[in-house]
Structure formats: structure tokens, C-alpha cells
């Protein structure tokens, strides 16, 4: 935890400094003796810097109880985190292709991918659920709630290829 806190404090200090630098460049439109647009951001800069320095110092002077058990637990945690990382990568790819391929075409493989990440191994089960649930969502939102989900620029082309 100590290392995590120090990392967090350093990252936040850097971010606060960048935030402060941008605040410096903001236009200062204000009446005399009244707070302008930069007033509140400056309060934030001061608070964030103060608290992150406090976190840094308190973590730096705290001893960590790094037992063998904790280390073993950390290794298990790392393996679990890998699956989480795959999910984030999959999510990012899904959001990149979604505007181009449209909701139906992009969601089916994304849904199937997440099902596999959830240790689902039956191919027919994955296929039927990913297609069925995606279509269900599409029709519920499109026709039930009038929410026009992205069709994508390649939607028609891909549909013509499939059909």
C-alpha cells in the first residue's frame, strides 16, 4: 500500500501542477475585489497539492509490513488483474470500432469476448447469447425507447456481405 500511495501522490502532484499551469493561462475577467473564473481552480490547486504532499509524506514515513502471505496474495492478485486488463483492452477496441461498424456488428463479438473472459467455454451457448442479447438490446432501445444506437458507416456494407 505504501508504494501505491507514493505513486498516487506523485501522479496527483504532477497533475495538479499541470492544472495550475493551465489555470495561469485562463483569462482573468473580474471586477475589483471579486473572484474571477480562476478563483475556484486556484483553490482546487492549493487543496490538491496540500493533500497529495500530505499523502506522500505520511506514506514515506510509514513502515510496510510485507509478510510472505501478503506477497503471495499479491501474485494471485496480479493473475486476476491480467484478466481485468484484457477486459479493458477489449472494451477500448469495442469503443473504437463501434462508430464505424455499428451497434449490432460490434456488440456481438464484444459480448462473446466478455463471456469467454467469464470462463464460459460452450461455443453454442456463447454464440446464441451474444447474438440474442445484442439483438434484444437493439430492439428494446430502438423501438421501445426511440434511442437510435450507432448504425456505423460500414453497417450497410457488412450487412450486404453477410446477407
Amino acid at each position, binding site marked *: 500500500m505504501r508504494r501505491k500511495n507514493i505513486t498516487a501522490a506523485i501522479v496527483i502532484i504532477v497533475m495538479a501542477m499541470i492544472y495550475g499551469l493551465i489555470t495561469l493561462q485562463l483569462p482573468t475577467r473580474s471586477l475589483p475585489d*471579486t473572484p*474571477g473564473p480562476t478563483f475556484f481552480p486556484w483553490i482546487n490547486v492549493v487543496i490538491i497539492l496540500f493533500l497529495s504532499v500530505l499523502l506522500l509524506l505520511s506514506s514515506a514515513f510509514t513502515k510496510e509490513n510485507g509478510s510472505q502471505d501478503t506477497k503471495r496474495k499479491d501474485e494471485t492478485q496480479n493473475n486476476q488483474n491480467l484478466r481485468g486488463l484484457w477486459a479493458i483492452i477489449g*472494451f477500448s477496441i469495442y469503443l473504437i470500432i463501434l462508430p464505424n461498424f455499428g451497434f449490432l456488428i460490434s456488440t456481438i463479438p464484444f459480448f462473446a469476448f466478455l463471456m469467454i473472459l467469464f470462463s464460459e467455454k460452450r461455443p453454442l451457448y456463447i454464440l446464441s447469447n451474444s447474438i440474442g*442479447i445484442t439483438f434484444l438490446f437493439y430492439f428494446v432501445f430502438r423501438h421501445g*425507447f426511440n434511442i437510435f444506437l450507432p448504425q456505423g458507416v460500414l453497417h450497410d456494407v457488412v450487412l450486404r456481405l453477410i446477407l
Partner: protein
Amino acid sequence: MNPDIIIGLNQSVGLIVLLSTSIGVLIGLIVGMIPGLTISTGIIVFLPITFVLPPDVSIALLLGLYVGGMTGGSFSAVLLNIPGTPSASATAIDGYPMASSGNAGRALGIAITASFVGGIVSFLFLFLVAPILAEFALNFRTEDMFSIILFGMTIICSFSAGSLVKGLLSAAIGLAIVTVGQDPVMGTQRFTFGEVNLMAGVHFLTALIGLFAIPQLISHISDQTNLRAVTQSKIKSILPNISDLKIIKFPIILGSLIGSFLGTLPGAGGPIAAFISYDYAKKISKRPERFGKGTIEGVAAPESANNAVTGGALIPMMTLGIPGDPVTAILIGALIVHGLAPGPLMFLERADFAYGVIFSFFWANIFNFLIAILSLRVLVKVLDTPRSILMPSLAVLCVVGSFALRNNFFDVYIMLFFGLIGISMKWLEMPVVPLLLALVLGGQLEENLRVALTGSQGDISIFFTSPISLSFIILSIVSVIWSFRSNKKYKQITN
């Protein structure tokens, strides 16, 4: 009688509104009982669907979800010994031993009945207190509003039990995020970097979906505890008998009163109210030695308290525009999306709507009792739903929800960005709720602070010379101290 009360009552008994309330309750019961899915996440995921509905219908649905979620949490607490929501943690102490000894139906029946009584008591509290408080709040000026919002933000302390510095940092980051977009007083563009989509600022709901739902999804993928095939307990009779009702009479009344009162205080929330009620129920009980081994009083007291918190939390939300807990913070966002600003003016300008909300809360409690009792045996089957279907559906709903907000794909990217922030915060063990509160209240906090200081030409003594402002500053200090004390007590009881 006040004509607005009649109009509000009529509004709440419209067929669509009642249907919406009951659907909300049903969804809430399901969301609440699934361990790991909080009521906040449930509301966030279903919120975008309500955008296309009229305000009264959508608020009725969300209130139903709120009330149902609180009760649903007790189902998994009793059957699995895993509280569906943090508020149901105390219920598991006696509920699970009861289920283990073949009394699952009895325990659930007690939990549902206690939730019902708690909800109705808090409805009465809300109905009687809210209009009086709103009328009083009409006299508030900007400096008073600043102090009230500051008081509302003291809820942060309750969610920073692990590390106060981290909790405050989380809130400060939230306050920095709300400065993106147009400045609320002069309209100057801040931190937009020329991006048109950022001119209106970061939409609070988009950020919320990312902050709450995405980390939850990732954590479920990372840690796949198999919870299937665990609902083997047979549920026999559900409704409590007369002798049971006699025993739980006092714990329920006690829990309802504690919950209704604590709900009004920012930061208290369901878990604290439930544990404090459990503790007091044990103290007044003639058989305290049976607590923890499966006694019905141990189920009744916390369940009545956590449902009573819902009505209590709606009081500061509706009258002052400050949330009593994270769920009411999201409800504020929902009302704002529908063009309704919660606060004292709501009772002046849209009193009919305000009473409609209060009565919808009443119906939500009635439906909660009926649906839970009638469909309990079917509902608990949801606990067997495979995560491999539930969680990918949640992921898709997050994307659809953030897109539907403004039909803009930029919001979906913002949602993912906040999702990554949420994951990082979880990894760093930083609480997310303070950030949520800062996102909800930050804009108003800045606006009231600057307008008050402009009026006083930069003299900060204005916050201490106004009696109302000074009272709320003192209350903020008391609330911080009280939060620490109750957190300490909560930890002692849970240990």
C-alpha cells in the same frame, strides 16, 4: 387541505406512474439481491432509459428501484450470507443462521415486513418534515446555500474511513473536474482545449457510469467467485405469524425511527443505521444472548432501519438539494436531467410534483411489500443467473446509457475515461463516493461561493455573520465529528 397534495396524490396514482413504480421495485429487488451490484449501479444503468419518459414516471421508477434495492439486499444476505448491498450487512448476522436452520422463508418474511414498516414510517417523516423545511429554506441567501452545500459535502467523511486524506483528495479531484466547461458566473471557457463537446462540461451521469459500473465489471472479471447453485434453502411459509410480530414490534419501531432520522443526516446512510439499530435492538432485547445465532429481532431491526433511511435521505435532497446518500446524489442528477432542480424552490414552484414524488415513494413501499411477498420464490432464482451473461449485459448497458444521454459518442469515450479513473482509484483504495459528491455539488458550491463573495466585495466574514450560514458551518463541524464517531462504532460492532 393543500391542493398540491391532492394533485401530487393524483399524479402518483396514474396507471403509467404506478406501473413504472412497480417495475422499478421489481428491478430494484433483483439488482439489490445480486451481490456486487449496488443500488447506485442499478440506478445508473437504468437511468438513461428514463430520459425518454416523463419526469413523474421516471422518478417513480427510480424511487421504486431505490426502495426495492434496499429490500433485495437482504435476500442474498439471508440465503447466501453475502449482503446484496452494504446496508444488508447487519441482516446477514441473524438472517443467515435462520436460513441455515431451515427458517429461510421466516427470515425473509420478517425482513420484508420490517422493510415495509421502515419505509412507511420514513414516508410519514418525509411527508410531514419536508414541506416545513422547504418553507424555511426559502429564506436562504447565497452565503447560506454555500454553507448548506458544504454541510452536504461532509458526507465525504463517512466514506473516507480508510484514509481521510484519500477521501478529501478524491473530492478535490472531483471539484477540479467540475471546473471543466463554462464558468458558472461569467461564462468563461475553462479547460476545454477548444473541444466543442467539453463546453457544457463533463456530464455528471456519464462520469458516474464510468466511475461506478466499469470498475465493478472489471472487478467481477478479475475475481470470479462462483455463486451458482447456492440458493438451495427451501422457502416455506413467508408471512410472519402473530407471535413473531409481537416479538419484532419494538425492534421494528426502533429501527424505523433510527433509520428515518439518520437518513436525513448527510453521510449516515443505510449500513450505519442498520448496525446502530441492531445494536440498540440487542440492548433492549430480553434475550440478547440469542443475537447472532438466528433471532428474528436481529433481522427486523436492521431491515426496518435501512429501508427507513430511504425516506429520510429524500428530505435533504428535496428540500435543500443536498444528497443524504450516494443514491440520492444520483437522483438529484436525474431530476436535473428532467429540468427540475431539487431544493426549496421545488416546493414553491412545483409543489404538485414534489408531493407526487413523496406519494410515489409511498406506493414504492406498498409495491415493494406486495411484489417481494408474492414473487419471493421466483425472485431468488435470479441469484442463479450466470455472471457470464449478467456482466457483459451490464457492459453493453453502460455504453448504451452514456450514448443515449445526448446521442453523442464523445460521452461514451468520457465514460471510458472515467471508468479508467475509477479502476485506478479502486487499485489505490481511494473512495469514489467523495468524487461523486463533488461532481454533484461542486458546480453549486463554486457558484454560491463566488456570488456571495461578489455581493460582499470579497469579505469572507459574510459566511459567519449570517446566522443560517454560521449554523450550517457549525453543523458541518458536528457532522464531521459525528461521522467519525459513528464510523468508529460501526467498526466496533462489525468486528
